[in-house]
């Protein structure tokens, strides 16, 4: 755990061969007779920011939930940090950010961030220290004593990111975390998330159906298609590591976005 | 000894069957599990009465209750007619009807709504059955006084729930009606009453239980020499517990059947409500 943490905290490896964080081999997942995910093979390495993009029903959320051991694989294999997803979950090796903030309304923002730390049995002082640190990191330092429903939607989602970071996992799984927010708030949060990732060296897996969002954030973009959910193409982004919002109008950004759009279209012409 | 052994075996078998059934999600399993549980309880009751020789004045066996149901049919029917047909039904209809109309009346005044609703809610939480002795003084020992108690008990739940229901329709839907130039009554009929139906049914179902309680308890205060409340209190006093249990059985069946009928009607009328929609 601590070794993995150390590796994760170092800057994204450029030359050294990186250890795989998530490896899927011919992974399929069925819900009854419905095939949600079909023969997916991929591998994410330390420091990657991976976006899973595709239309509704392409299995991107299912893939993320499988990594989190929230749904069991039906066939094929899936390893997280070299363990089964279940062992990885029990080792508390990832933080998960849901589509909704899922903050507990009866806890203050600070105590929401402390929730996983309470469950993992950290000392009270350390819980407080970490809550203050990570709330500061997402720009909510002044809102610790507020209750979630007194915050805007964007702030709530930031609090839930602070909660996912608070126990310092090396892997952050995010399921359309900004899907319910307006575009302006979303831009701000994307920039915030990008800087967080840059500074921490986290491995992120991010589900979205927004092309600009995926291109802006990612080092790799996994394009998926529905019925049954499968991977169309994995696009390696050659954008510079340091990014800002203005970059979204640059030629290289638009070129990557175009490749994603072409891949999505290829997935659709299959129907 | 044999009874104890049979009971033990039956209990184990029933527990096993329920554990198996509760893993299945079919309709049959959902109905069979509580049915087995109920039958097991009735068997254990019977076995306990027989095995421990529990005196009849404490607890009659289920078989004795059933035989009382059959040997006193005429008397029990007369009690049922007096209490349910003559007291509960008229009282329920008048109480619910009046509560509904009162809700329509106060709905046009925001001031009245703000004044009446908290009071109505508070009154609903009061032990209203206590007005029974007053009702007996005013309307005599007959069914009229029982019906009056039922009216008193049912009126406020209906008033409060209907008012809440009338506030249910959203601003968007109301704007739509306004854009059609629909007036107050048309909006009420086409939009607000349908939207209020789930709340109205909540009150109707709640009131069906309250009405039965009101009529039965009112008879404890004075009644002619028949009626379900009268029967329960006098038969209990004279230790004819089989008759008491028989009457309670009838009261329970009446209550659940009334409730079930209302629930069916609700399902038919408010099928569109999220609580009835199938998640498919």
């Amino acid at each position, binding site marked *: 755990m601590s070794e993995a943490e150390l590796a994760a905290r170092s800057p994204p490896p450029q030359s050294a061969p990186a250890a795989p964080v998530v490896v899927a081999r011919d992974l399929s997942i069925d819900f009854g007779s419905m095939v949600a995910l079909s023969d997916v093979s991929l591998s994410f390495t330390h420091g990657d920011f991976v976006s899973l993009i595709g239309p509704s029903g392409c299995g991107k959320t299912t893939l993320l939930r499988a990594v989190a051991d929230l749904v069991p694989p039906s066939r094929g294999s899936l390893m997280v940090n070299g363990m089964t997803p279940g062992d990885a979950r029990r080792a508390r090796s990832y933080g998960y950010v849901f589509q909704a903030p899922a903050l507990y*309304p009866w806890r203050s923002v600070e105590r929401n961030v402390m929730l996983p730390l309470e469950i993992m049995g950290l000392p009270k002082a350390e819980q407080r220290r970490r809550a203050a640190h990570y709330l500061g990191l997402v720009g909510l330092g002044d809102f610790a004593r507020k209750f979630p429903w007194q915050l805007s939607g964007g702030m709530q989602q930031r609090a839930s990111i602070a909660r996912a970071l608070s126990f310092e996992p090396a892997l952050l799984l995010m399921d359309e975390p900004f899907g319910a927010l307006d575009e302006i708030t979303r831009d701000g949060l994307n920039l915030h998330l990008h800087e967080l990732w840059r500074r921490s060296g986290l491995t992120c897996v991010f589900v979205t159906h927004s092309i600009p969002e995926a291109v802006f954030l990612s080092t790799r973009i996994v394009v998926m298609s529905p019925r049954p959910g499968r991977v169309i193409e994995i696009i390696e982004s050659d954008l510079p590591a340091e990014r800002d919002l203005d970059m979204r109008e640059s030629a290289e950004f638009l070129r990557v976005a175009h490749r994603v759009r072409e891949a999505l279209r290829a997935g659709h012409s299959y129907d | 000894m044999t009874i104890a052994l049979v009971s033990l075996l039956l209990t184990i078998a029933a527990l096993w069957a329920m554990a198996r059934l*509760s893993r299945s999600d079919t309709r049959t399993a959902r109905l069979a599990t509580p049915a087995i549980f109920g039958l097991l309880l009735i068997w254990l009751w019977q076995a306990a009465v027989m095995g421990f020789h529990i005196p009849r004045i404490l607890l009659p066996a289920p078989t004795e209750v059933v035989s009382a149901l059959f040997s006193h049919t005429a008397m029990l029917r007369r009690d049922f007619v007096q209490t349910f047909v003559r007291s509960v039904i008229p009282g329920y209809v008048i109480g619910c009807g009046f509560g509904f109309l009162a809700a329509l009346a106060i709905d046009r005044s925001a001031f009245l709504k703000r004044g009446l609703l908290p009071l109505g809610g508070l009154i609903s*939480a009061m*032990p209203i059955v206590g007005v029974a002795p007053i009702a007996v003084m005013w309307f005599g020992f007959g069914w009229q006084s029982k019906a009056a108690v039922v009216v008193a008990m049912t009126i406020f739940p209906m008033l409060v729930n209907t008012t809440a229901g009338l506030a249910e329709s959203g601003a968007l839907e109301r704007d739509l009606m306004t854009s059609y130039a629909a007036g107050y009554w048309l909006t009420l009929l086409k939009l607000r009453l349908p939207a209020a139906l789930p709340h109205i049914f909540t009150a109707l179902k709640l009131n069906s239980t309250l009405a039965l309680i009101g009529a039965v308890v009112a008879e404890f205060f004075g009644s002619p020499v028949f009626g*379900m409340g009268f029967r329960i209190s006098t038969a209990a006093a004279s230790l004819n517990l089989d008759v008491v249990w028989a009457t309670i059985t009838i009261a329970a069946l009446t209550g659940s059947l*009334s*409730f079930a009928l209302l629930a069916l009607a609700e399902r038919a009328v408010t099928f569109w409500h999220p609580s009835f929609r199938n998640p498919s």
Partner: protein
Amino acid sequence: MTREQSGLRRAVDTAFPVFVVAVAAVVLWYAISAIIGTALLPRPDQVAATLGTSVFGWPVTSPRNLLYHAGVTAEAALVGLAFAIVLGVAIAVGIVHFRVLDRSLMPWVIASQTIPILAIAPMVVVVLGNLGLSGLPPKAAISGYLAFFPIVVGMVTGLRAPDSIQFDLMRTYSASGQQVFAKLRLPASVAFLFPALRVSVALSVMGAIVAELPTGAQAGLGARLLAGSYYGQTLMIWATLVMAALLSASLLGVTALAEAGLRAWRGGRL
């Protein structure tokens, strides 16, 4: 400052219409008693005078004091309520955690809300009397039995209230069953416990009063109602009814205070 003012404004906005309607009800009461005669419907001031004499004219321990009777009834209601809460919460926890209980017991708990349970009151009193239990136990038993069902239903709903992503969240922390219960289910259920508790408080008072009817009991509001009914003491009946309403209202008030306290502690929401 402005916030306090708007709070005061809101309080006046709610209290004023209630006050006006209450005054109108009293005026209506006067009018009706003037029409049908005070023998059938005593005037509010007569009822108030009877209540006042009873409460202030006699020591609290005297059977002539309605507070004494209210105390007897309240004791039964509260003992019953306490048992109902303990047992109701325990059974709800069982139902939420064991599928067998959910499938076998829960349908009966729900169905029992549709039957007039209060009808068993005379029998419970007689049977427990035969076992040598009279006075408080049968009354508390009936109160508790009535109050039990809403608490089970409310708690089962509350313990199941968190949505699936909140449970998923606990799973990603690989929280134990106990942790899920203590940190998620139980805190979430509080919002559902209080509405159930209000219903149960009202039922427990009603149960205690009705349980006093068949005992030939000398004490308690129910006994007082029955005595008034036997001897045609209209004023006594009305005064007792008002006392019963006050008892119910004050127990509901205590519940509301507890709820408000918890609400304040949770920043204004349950």
